[in-house]
């Protein structure tokens, strides 16, 4: 028997991209037609690598004429996101629609609720400021805590630990963005009798980096089993424009540029991929440490952080819990 831990290196993430693309597109075609009984697929594209790769696979599976793209910017989106979204839609030859969701978010109170909580943590915060949320603690073996990092219009910088009440309110308010986008995706899906594609990669799916009933909601998730570096490789394999395949992953949710690793993941995505693969294949922390070039203690904290996030976000994956099994519909109830 081969001991996977013995062969552990960056190469474990290499896959046969053409075989994988073929497998995903065949399955996606079958699922859309026979499982979901829909005539096509709606994909919201952010210009990021995951939605780009997902829509490219959708196009390869069922053709550009059956894929509808949505570009859904709001006040805090980078201008470049919509530009890259259009570039991609035109590259793939799909029909697309741009809908600025800022007025709807304003009307529902997204920005107001968010700014009220930020102002409590950072008196003086107001129009013209830019901000983001940063996570810290987990890979030092501590409980993860959240900070608001902000920049005043005059360039002064602030970094304050958020109390839980304010953190929850900021996140709850910003979650409006993902939920409103999903509402629009389903509007177009219902209108066209299409299904909705969810675009998480494996890191996001496993670690619960999504909003329940927001970007977590979908009819099919074609790349949820692929590690993020595999998604980058797949996007290149599918011939996507260089501006897409070289984009740095961001959350595109807050007004200051925010890396996904600052907000949620303990490490930059390539290292997270490797750590998650290693944990999934029972690679000892010492071996992970050797490949990552860190201490064994830190590698152990990384494992613990991954497991903590899995536990904390398990509820995001759950369907509503029933009090008693309705066997005819769903056979198992916890």
């Amino acid at each position, binding site marked *: 028997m081969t001991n996977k831990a013995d062969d552990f290196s960056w190469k474990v993430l290499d896959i046969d991209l053409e075989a994988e693309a073929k497998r995903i597109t065949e399955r996606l075609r079958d699922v859309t037609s026979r499982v979901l009984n829909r005539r096509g697929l709606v994909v919201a594209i952010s210009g990021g690598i995951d939605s780009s790769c997902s829509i490219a696979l959708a196009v390869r599976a069922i053709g550009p004429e059956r894929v509808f793209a949505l570009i859904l910017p709001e006040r805090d989106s980078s201008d470049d996101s919509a530009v890259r979204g259009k570039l991609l839609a035109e590259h793939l030859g799909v029909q697309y629609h741009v809908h600025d969701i800022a007025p709807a978010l304003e009307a529902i109170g997204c920005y107001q609720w968010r700014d009220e909580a930020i102002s409590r943590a950072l008196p003086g915060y107001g129009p013209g400021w830019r901000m983001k949320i940063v996570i*810290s*603690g987990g890979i030092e*073996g*501590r*409980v*993860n*805590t959240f900070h608001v990092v902000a920049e005043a219009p005059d360039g002064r910088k602030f970094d304050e*630990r958020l*109390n*839980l*009440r304010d*953190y*929850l309110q900021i996140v709850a308010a910003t979650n409006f963005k993902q939920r409103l986008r999903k509402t629009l995706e389903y509007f177009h899906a219902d209108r066209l009798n299409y299904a909705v594609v969810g675009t998480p990669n494996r890191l996001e799916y496993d670690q619960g980096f999504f909003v329940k009933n927001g970007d977590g909601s979908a009819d099919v998730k074609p790349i949820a089993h692929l590690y993020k570096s595999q998604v980058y490789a797949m996007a290149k394999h599918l011939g996507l424009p260089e501006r897409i395949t070289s984009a740095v992953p961001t959350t595109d949710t807050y007004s200051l540029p925010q890396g996904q690793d600052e907000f949620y993941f303990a490490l930059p995505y390539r290292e997270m991929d490797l750590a998650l693969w290693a944990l999934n294949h029972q690679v000892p922390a010492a071996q992970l440490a050797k490949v990552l070039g860190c201490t064994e203690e830190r590698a152990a904290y990384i494992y613990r952080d991954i497991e*903590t*996030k899995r*536990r*904390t976000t398990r509820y995001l994956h759950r369907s509503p819990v029933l009090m008693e099994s309705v066997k005819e519909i769903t056979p198992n109830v916890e």
Partner: protein
Amino acid sequence: MSTRSEVKSFILKNYLFTEDDAALADSDSLMQKGVVDSTGILELIMHVEDTYGIKVLDEEMVPQNLDSVTAISAFVERKRGK
């Protein structure tokens, strides 16, 4: 009320929705028993900060200080003794 019984009563009422003292042993790991997740730990931190007028520092936010009734009450006592 002692710190230990106040902390325990807070956890029983707010996390387990009970007043039954037997529902949780003082030494039980709150994480392992599924009583709290990481958001739950942050709620506990906020509670002890508000109730005891202490400030939990970043470097003190470790499971050894926060993962059981015994650990939390000992931690709070240490902080208040300072």
